[in-house]
């Protein structure tokens, strides 16, 4: 029985290797590792493990340069998710992951299984998931299929998240024609576990049983990881069979069963079966533990008849986990999974051979040494080309065609700034009973920890148009904005997860974007003590040669010792509005420039990281002292949009001072200078004095009250009409109706 696997015909194997996405030199490496032509199953294993999606072969050299350490980091990149100490003996476990390609091919299931996959990455480490977020980028709504994609993605995220009972509390959405053929769906999950009860994936204990739990294996998603590692062409719809089908009910049972098992001491190691399914989970667990693994495919729970070893190893059927149990505990563990009506099967054991051996029907279908499968995996330092620097625009040199209030009304209804209510109204944001700040209520979502005062603040951020114009500045800005949004609710920012969405890395200008974005992110992470603890890379986001905007989406997590300290963004009457941070009037790459002047030009606003930190630390201290009634960071659209957003939140207007002398008014109102916050306080003069003492620029720019936004020249617009413009856009687009 223990004979070598049956090699494919040499010419057939070479041809198949190309179809599976292996380059010629990569295939030569397979031959030298094995010393023979691979079997079909072996070729499948090599091709998915060495796919861009699983191997990070183009990105790893750059990702290594990101800062990943801090005293509060328990596990950085390399585990299923990042783990940080949040106090009270607890850890937050979180990660963001893309499901871009599947979501374009089959929007509902692609997005749904994206949520399912990221949930598993988090609960596989022992955490109960407490919050989901999603960062979405869609094309122009009039682009072919795009409304169907938007509708399907939103329904899919809701359909999965609502059913598993994890609140979807935040996220972000952008629209740009660069995503017409390649929308982005990045899903983030945050979970909580006792910090001394974290479960890892390194297998250990020769002879220990390898246990499969969850759903049965079917033929869905075979070669999903390979599909996610290639560009799209016009026939992408034909790839629908590579998209998996999600079952949130089974996921919910899997969460409860795994957490019940994790409360015992039976588990040695555990990992979810994500991309490349049984292959990646078994290879990674054994590889990390430095042991061999032998699997018997006959014992794998199967949904369909006649499945081959190749199909079972490559299937990406959802809601499955692989575990190494302590010996002799199988019956106890099985009882828990049967209580939850889930499959439980011992499908193999750990060995001392250092090989992965796959048996099926008494035939050895694969026998691969694990060490070279990892150590000789391709690693590329691909050529990079720098993005040319853009000119800095002078606001005074740009004509303002409409004036501030007309521009404001247009901007608050524009696709990138309009209300996301149509989306979040389809997501259950309150299940769990701990949601302190729901979508739209604050700059970051705030979720309390059950039974404690402590709360987490969570956000996702990226401004792709900045990244396109200057990837390094854009990378730094994405990290800084996440830090700022956490700060604006009063939280202490702790760490990030990154979801790097880029085009084809074999093009030097794309690889250059990636390298520059990482440079900018690393600088910001270092300056803000905001390390990267987990992440995901999605490359080849191109359709017919057209790349997306570079989109390094950042998921940030911070902590509030007392949830009662969290502030939202809604204005109430009778407060001074204080602008913290300096305003030069930076219109390059601003939404005003794009939506009002019709130009996508110029250098994006730079982030001065020292100033960012100083301003943010000042604002957070005032919030925690209880001096701030509402706070909002200034981001897309600048100052006047920020005022409008605070006003629309609860219907309270404001009267605003004139722009400072010598500044172009449209630069003042709509410039997107970084490192700024707008605070609503009872004593603006005291706040400004405190800011001056701290060396932080601050000025009173208005006072809240009434139902209108009133400028110094007496012109005004009602908050109600702003709200109407703000709320109308998505319902009109998606339902053909008024808000």
């Amino acid at each position, binding site marked *: 029985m223990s004979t070598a696997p049956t090699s494919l015909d040499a010419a057939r194997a070479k041809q198949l290797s190309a179809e599976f996405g292996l380059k010629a030199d990569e295939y030569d490496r397979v031959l030298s590792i094995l010393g023979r032509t691979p079997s079909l199953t072996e070729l499948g294993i090599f091709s998915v493990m060495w796919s861009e999606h699983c191997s990070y072969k183009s990105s790893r050299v750059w990702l290594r340069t990101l800062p990943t350490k801090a005293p509060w980091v328990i596990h950085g990149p390399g585990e299923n998710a990042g783990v940080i100490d949040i106090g009270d003996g607890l850890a937050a476990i979180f990660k963001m992951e893309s499901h871009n390609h599947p979501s374009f091919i089959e929007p509902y299931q692609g997005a749904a299984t994206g949520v399912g996959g990221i949930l598993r990455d988090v609960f596989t480490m022992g955490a109960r998931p407490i919050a989901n977020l999603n960062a979405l980028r869609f094309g122009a709504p009039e682009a072919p299929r795009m409304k169907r994609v938007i509708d399907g993605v939103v*329904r899919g995220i809701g359909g999965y998240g*609502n*059913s598993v*009972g994890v609140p979807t509390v935040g996220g972000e959405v952008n629209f740009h024609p660069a995503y017409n053929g390649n929308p982005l769906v990045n899903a983030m999950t945050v979970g909580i576990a006792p910090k001394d009860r974290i479960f890892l994936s390194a297998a250990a204990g020769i002879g220990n049983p390898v246990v499969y739990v969850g759903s049965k294996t079917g033929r869905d998603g075979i070669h999903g990881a390979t599909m996610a590692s290639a560009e799209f062409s016009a026939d992408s719809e034909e790839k629908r069979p590579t998209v998996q089908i999600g079952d949130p009910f089974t996921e919910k049972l899997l969460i409860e069963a795994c957490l019940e098992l994790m409360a015992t001491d039976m588990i040695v190691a555990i990992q979810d079966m994500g991309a490349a399914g049984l292959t990646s989970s078994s290879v990674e667990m054994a590889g990390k533990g430095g042991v061999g693994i032998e699997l018997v495919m006959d014992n794998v729970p199967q949904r369909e008849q006649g499945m081959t070893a190749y199909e079972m190893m490559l299937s990406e059927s959802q809601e499955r986990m692989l575990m190494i149990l302590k010996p002799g505990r199988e019956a106890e563990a099985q009882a828990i999974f049967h209580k939850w009506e889930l499959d439980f099967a011992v499908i193999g054991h750990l060995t001392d051979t250092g090989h992965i051996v796959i048996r099926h029907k008494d035939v050895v279908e694969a026998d691969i040494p694990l060490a070279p499968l990892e150590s000789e995996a391709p690693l590329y330092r691909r050529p990079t080309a720098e993005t040319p620097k853009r000119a800095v625009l002078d606001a005074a040199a740009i004509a303002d065609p409409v004036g501030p209030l007309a521009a404001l009304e247009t901007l608050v209804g524009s696709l990138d700034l309009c209300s996301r209510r149509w989306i979040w109204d389809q997501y*259950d944001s309150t299940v769990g*009973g701990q949601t302190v700040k729901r979508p739209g209520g604050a700059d970051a979502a705030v979720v309390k920890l059950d039974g404690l005062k402590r709360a987490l603040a969570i956000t996702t951020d990226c401004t792709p148009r900045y990244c396109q114009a200057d990837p390094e500045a854009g990378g730094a800005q994405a990290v800084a904005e996440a830090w700022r949004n956490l700060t604006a609710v009063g939280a202490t920012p702790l760490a990030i997860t990154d979801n790097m969405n880029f085009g084809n890395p074999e093009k030097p200008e794309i690889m250059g974007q990636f390298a520059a974005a990482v440079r900018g992110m690393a600088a910001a992470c270092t300056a803000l003590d905001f390390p990267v603890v987990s992440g995901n890379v999605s490359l080849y986001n191109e359709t017919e040669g057209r790349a997306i905007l570079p989109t390094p989406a950042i998921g940030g997590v911070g902590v509030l010792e007392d949830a*009662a300290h969290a502030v939202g963004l809604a204005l109430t009457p009778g407060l001074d509005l204080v602008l913290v941070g300096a305003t030069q009037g930076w219109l390059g790459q601003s939404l005003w420039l794009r939506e009002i002047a019709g130009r996508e030009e110029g250098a994006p606003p730079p982030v001065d990281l020292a100033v960012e930190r100083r301003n943010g630390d000042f604002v957070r201290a005032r919030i925690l002292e209880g001096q701030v009634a509402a706070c909002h960071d200034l981001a897309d659209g600048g100052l006047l949009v920020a005022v409008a957003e605070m006003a629309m939140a609860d219907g309270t207007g404001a009267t605003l001072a004139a722009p400072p002398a010598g500044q172009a008014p449209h630069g003042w109102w709509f410039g997107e200078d970084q490192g700024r916050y707008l605070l609503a306080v009872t004593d603006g003069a005291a706040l400004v004095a405190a800011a001056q003492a701290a060396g932080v620029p601050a000025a009173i720019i208005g006072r809240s009250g009434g139902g209108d936004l009133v400028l110094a020249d007496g012109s005004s617009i009602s908050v109600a009409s702003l709200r109407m413009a703000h709320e109308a856009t998505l319902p009109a687009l998606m339902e053909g109706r008024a808000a």
Partner: protein
Amino acid sequence: MNAVIIVFPGTNRERDMAIALERASGRKPTLLFHRADALPAGTDLVVLPGGFSHGDYLRSGAMAAQSPIMQAVRDFAAKGGHVLGVCNGFQILTEAGLLPGALLRNATLRFLSMDCHMRVERSGTPYTAHWQKGAVFRAPMAHGDGNYFCDDETLARLNGEGLVAFRYSTPAGEITDAANRNGARQNIAGILSPNLRICGLMPHPEDLVDPLMGGTDGLPMFTSLVESLATA
């Protein structure tokens, strides 16, 4: 108050309900898995919480209504026991025949997650004692199948016998189409059994019992229950 929360596979708001019940009564409720065939001795309130029992891949609540524990819940109800069903729990109560009518797909054909307002249509019941008739309160709703439907005869009986507990309304208490997001018949959000001991409603008062989460509008339902059951 000895409250028991039934947990079906796919139930997901049991913890929210436990928090609300404990906040109102000072006692932790018992969580009971659906495979049990009896309720603990001394149970005086059974709660069927929200979620997606058995995935709700068949009609919502249809499979849970056939769970082993449901016979015990029926017996408990038949003896005059108090049973509260919220969201999926309301759907299960209708599928189990403990309350009339059915919960159809939302008229919008979309999942609806937002705060709604409800007008209290009957005071003085175990579930509404701490509200005045006509009082309006706010609660989150989060459902895909919340569109209450019943035939004309049932509707006449519910109205005639004062068994409509809550209707969707504006914050000012007006019963309008715009306030009726899921398309329920006559804005019905919640109903009562003829003995007033069984109550089902779609929105989630249990998610609004703490100022930190945005208010305590939902708390009177639970304090009403505590008081009613203490004196029952």
